[in-house]
């Protein structure tokens, strides 16, 4: 296989934007609180991929440092999200978003 596929910046960006869109769709469509949390993590990881790709192809190491910041923040966000999910489960006896009907108008 001499003409192996050359993976360039655009490939990474396309994958990253697809992952991001899957995350957006997950947040908008899914009804389960845990799946929504996973979708948000997916969005953040998609961004990490594009940071790393830009950093590699622009020969600019700063982007990889940003990935670490984002990973730390994503971990904190996941922890808080799950804590809120537990609190919601205790009050509502379920983690479906259709239970959230006390606030509207």
């Amino acid at each position: 296989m001499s003409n192996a596929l050359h993976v360039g910046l655009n490939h990474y960006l396309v994958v990253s934007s697809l992952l991001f869109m899957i995350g957006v769709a997950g947040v908008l469509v899914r009804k389960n609180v845990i799946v929504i949390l996973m979708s948000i993590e997916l969005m953040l990881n998609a961004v990490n991929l594009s940071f790393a790709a830009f950093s590699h192809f622009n020969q600019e190491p700063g982007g990889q440092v940003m990935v670490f910041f984002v990973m730390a923040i994503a971990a904190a966000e996941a922890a808080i999200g799950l804590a809120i999910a537990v609190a919601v489960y205790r009050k509502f006896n379920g983690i479906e978003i259709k239970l959230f009907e006390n606030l509207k108008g």
Partner: protein
Amino acid sequence: MTPQVSWADLSLMIPFVILFLFSVVPISGKVLNGNTELNKNFNFLIALVGLFLALVFTGFQTVIEPRLAFGGTVIYDGLTWVGNISVVGIAIFILLLAKNHPTIRNHQYSEHMFLMFSTLLGMFVMNFSNDLIMSFIGIELMSLPLYVLIGIGGGDKISKEASFKYFVLGSFASAFLLYGVALVYGAARTTQIDNIINNQMVVQQLTFQAGLVIFLIGLFFKVALVPFHAWLPDVYQGAPTPITGFMASGVKLVIFFFILRIVPLGQLYTQNNMFKLFEWFSILTMAIGSLAALHQTNLKRIIAYSSIAHTGYVFMGIIAAIKGDFQQSIYGVVAYLLIYVLMTIGTFAVIGHFEKKQDHQLNLDDLKGLANRRPVLAACFSILLLSLAGVPPMGGFFAKLMIFSTAVNADLYWLVVWGALTSVMSVYYYLKPIVNMYMYKSDIILLENRGRAQKIAIYVCTFLIVISGFLIQPLIEKLNILLFP
């Protein structure tokens, strides 16, 4: 390139470090004391001392000229200074509001304190940030404790629901913001705002412009401009009232201050039609905020919608800053935000003052006959509401006048007409509580929770609003020295 960190850079962070140290005192005391809360008044005093020390140290670091620190990621100029001072001031007020509020449970007071200080530190990071990734960290540091603060309060369902709604939409917005930062970074190879502004080549790139738009959408989510506002009324209603006050004042203030920092980038958009869209955002925000408030009965929800409408007025000032004279408009926006902060904190202090227990929701009818029983509080509430409506002798009028006049100077007549129309509309729902308080008699006796601290906050806010007509000229002169040395 090794980053140079000098003592001068570190000295900028003194208030930040003080706040952090004081934030861990109550919670460490709780841990060392075998997981039982220290004396509540002691914790309150510790927090108050920390905030006053931070205020004094920030006050001493008066700005002579803007400077960058920590390799350019941190900026220290007049806007940072004004932002830091006002954010610490807001925190002092919120501390007073939360002192005896029923949603702040006594056995979790030190956690509450720690989370509130963490939010405050996030606001500081936002004020300091000269780097898009710094601003992301600031927003997250500000939002994450807020998600918990909303949910930690009550035993009721609505605070959990509000917490979850805010969490999902807040994280969603942060992810958008971050994606925007990634695209900007890819195009400009840097995330430092001053480098980006000075690089005309980069700004013309499509990747950069797309990134900036996505970044701005993330910010608009956080301040709840109209296409992205749906979370705000639910969250403001469900959150404990002191925390609602914190969100409505502090979070909005710092994010708008940050938007003022990237206004020079907006100037490049005159070449492109994005502007028209921004004008529509402002119009829709004013209109929908005012219209949706008209038929509400829950008091907190009314103020939440009015907060959306006020966001629209501030955004009109920002469009004026982009399109017209930057220097004139920035005074308008900053002065408006400062006065708006006082008005909202005062309003939420009054609402919080009449909430007896955790899931008590204050409705319009509950206010009937209040003027007979509590004449002073009713008068204060009326003054604050009239100021929010923009009735002449109060501070809100001068704030609105400044925003409208900057918009007229920037030839944004179309926006000013909408602004005037929605202000007139908003008078209706601001007058409803006043009418209920003064014109009706009722047998339901609205009890207040015993809180001298809240009363102090109400009286100080009202006093400042009443005299702000006289204060506005010295304020602008002071801002002139600070923002444009």
